[in-house]
């Protein structure tokens, strides 16, 4: 482990980092900017590199005045951090998949505790059968819990989102989840600028909550709330999340000024005059740029909208971004089983209040369990969207085996001969 050399370049140090290590350095910068951080984590593939590097940074003193607590489960990791956060510390953890779902109880707990924990989740499919590869099922199934959720498309964005996430989350006392795709980012090395600590310090003030667990101001946190008041507490939490919309643009602008990189909750690519647009998130939204470029070359007015922040859901920005398009294809690397892709539902809901003419929504489900999403996958989505005779009632599942032609009679498992061939 090499120490990070002092930066001569105002942008910091240019490094070749995996997404996991980018997360480690993001946490390190946030920790050092705060004068200390509490980290607690439990290993799970493909998150392990995040905390391995952080343990090293704590052990060698690069990460100053900090505690790394190697707990016995993800559930305990989140419990440690809620408690630490409520005691006034900046807190960090990383997990993935089953680990995130094991935390689920406390994911809700953290938000209602108004504990601005920052969690890096490496998107990984859920078992069984075992899959260590990426999809968004884990984090999106916790979409209602009161967390900010950022879905990153690059390793740089992972690092930057951690810094941004602390800034916004701590200001509002809501937790933030920074999400990156398993392997596609987590284990893929890219160029990443590690910004100078001084710059991070200017952007990210230390976390100093007014009310916390404090022997000099003894209070009891989390007592019984009667039905008359419970809805008001939920409303307050929801209001705090809603304020992200108001707070984030200023933070993004300052971030751009200090670090030279710009982020938006909703990012459009070649949207001008687009008749058909793809709505995607995370790394497929980068691959999709290539597909859009090709379509534009072929004279098709295609465009792309990347949803960077899923919660709070940027409905207004999304409506603006999609304005003018006739058809919107939605790429979901997840599924609400028994329903449709989660993004599709959200997009439809966002467009419900949009002025006519509203774009048609064409939902696609692709890339589950790490199935690769290629330019061809994206092109197929565009082609099927453009070629659709009508608005589909069900999402189109890409990359799945065809059903038997004699649809109607359900195929019983024992009849499924040849499926594995």
């Amino acid at each position, binding site marked *: 482990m090499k120490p990070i050399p002092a930066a001569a370049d105002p942008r910091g140090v240019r490094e070749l980092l995996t997404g996991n290590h980018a997360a480690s350095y993001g946490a390190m910068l946030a920790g050092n900017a705060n004068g*200390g*951080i*509490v980290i*607690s984590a439990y290993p799970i593939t493909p998150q392990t590199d995040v905390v391995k590097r952080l343990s090293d940074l704590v052990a060698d003193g690069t990460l100053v*005045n*900090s*505690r790394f*607590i*190697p*707990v*016995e*489960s993800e*559930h*305990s*990791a989140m*419990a*440690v*951090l*809620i*408690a*630490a*956060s*409520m*005691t*006034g*510390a900046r*807190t960090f953890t990383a997990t993935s998949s089953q680990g995130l779902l094991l935390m689920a*109880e*406390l994911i809700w*707990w953290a938000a209602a505790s108004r504990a601005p924990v920052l969690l890096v989740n490496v998107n990984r499919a859920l078992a069984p059968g075992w899959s260590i590869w990426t999809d968004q099922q884990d984090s999106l199934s916790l979409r209602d819990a009161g967390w900010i959720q950022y879905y990153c498309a690059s390793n740089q964005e992972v690092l930057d989102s951690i810094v941004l996430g602390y800034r916004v989350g701590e200001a509002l006392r809501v937790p933030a989840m920074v999400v990156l795709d398993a392997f596609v980012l987590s284990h893929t090395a890219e160029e990443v600028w590690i910004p100078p600590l001084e710059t991070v310090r200017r952007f990210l003030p230390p976390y100093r909550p007014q009310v916390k*667990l*404090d*022997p000099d*101001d*003894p*209070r*009891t*946190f*989390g*007592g*019984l*709330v*009667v039905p008359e*008041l419970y809805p008001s507490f939920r409303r307050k939490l929801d209001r705090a999340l809603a304020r992200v919309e108001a707070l984030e643009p200023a933070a993004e602008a300052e971030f751009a000024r200090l670090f030279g990189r710009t982020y938006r909750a909703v990012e459009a690519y070649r949207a001008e005059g687009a008749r058909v647009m793809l709505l995607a998130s995370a790394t497929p939204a980068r691959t999709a740029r290539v597909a859009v470029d090709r379509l534009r070359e072929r004279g098709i007015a295609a465009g792309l909208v990347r949803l960077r922040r899923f919660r709070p859901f940027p409905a207004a920005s999304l409506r603006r971004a999609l304005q003018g398009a006739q058809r919107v294809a939605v790429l979901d690397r997840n599924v609400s089983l028994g329903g449709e892709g989660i993004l599709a539902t959200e997009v439809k809901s966002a467009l419900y209040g949009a002025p006519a003419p509203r774009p048609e929504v064409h939902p696609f489900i692709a890339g589950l369990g790490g199935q690769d999403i290629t330019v061809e996958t994206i092109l197929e989505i565009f082609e099927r969207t453009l070629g659709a005779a009508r608005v589909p009632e069900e999402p189109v599942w890409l990359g799945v085996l065809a059903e038997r032609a004699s649809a109607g009679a359900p195929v019983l498992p024992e009849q499924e001969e040849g499926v594995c061939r």
Partner: protein
Amino acid sequence: MPVRPEEAGPRDLFGPGSVNCGGCGMGLSLKLALEVLGPRTILTIPACCAAVSVGAFPVSAVGVSVLLHAFETTGATIAGVRAALDVLGVAGVEVVGWAGDGGTYDIGLQALSGAAERNDDVLYVCYDNEAYMNTGVQRSSATPPGAWTSTTPLGKPLEQPKKDLLAIVAAHHVPYAASLSAAFPEDFRAKFRAARAVRGFRFLLVHSPCPPGWRADAKDTVRLGRLAVTSGVFPLVEVRHGRRWRITVEPTFSGLDEYLDLQGRFAHLTNEQRARIRAGIELQWEELRARVEARPRAEERSGAGQATPSVRPQVPSSP
């Protein structure tokens, strides 16, 4: 929080206005504990009677900082508070988890084990009322054999002995672990003081009679606690570094029938079943004495560990 001007002391830190049941053994133990712990304490409480007892928002009957948290997380929660205090540079604060037997023996055992194994500098207190009382008396792994609960309507099978939690914690080789009872206040205070005198993970198992759950008269809370100890049902011991066991109150091995008779949860027991309970106590003490005598020679040679402070054994002193 405002202090009652007329009376300094434990009332500042616990009560009045706590909504535990009359005669609550947990409430008594919490009161005595806070007397020793003092105001520079952060208490964490998972789902349990104590979480209700402190009161509903916006009031609290406890005068120190309290964090109420998820059922199974006590070990992790206190570790988190301690880590934050360390990072923030706050010294001189005792971090205390205050959990019931359900939250410790059962659902919280994993987090307890984690914190114990890491030797986090925290004090974990389990008040053991021997069932899930807050939810209406369901069995836990701390429920003694033979006891009625709402999920053991015929009495918990005699083949299912109470989990030996102290031995489990001791097996983590934590610096200090002890069992105690508010019915023996001097021993109780001495153990809290002893726990406070060392750093690292400390564990206190507080026997905590529950009159409603044990189907007993509220007035008999302390009496039951005393009988549990004198009859040998609940040994008062301490163990340092998981190796040096010491009995702090020697039972008279009398009063078992009185102990059982005072509790409706044992009303169904036959004489034969009582005899088996008695035999179980004998076995428990055989094992315990073997542990006391098995003080490792290697440790004595190396002189590891400080001398055990003398805790005055009692029967409380004569009036």
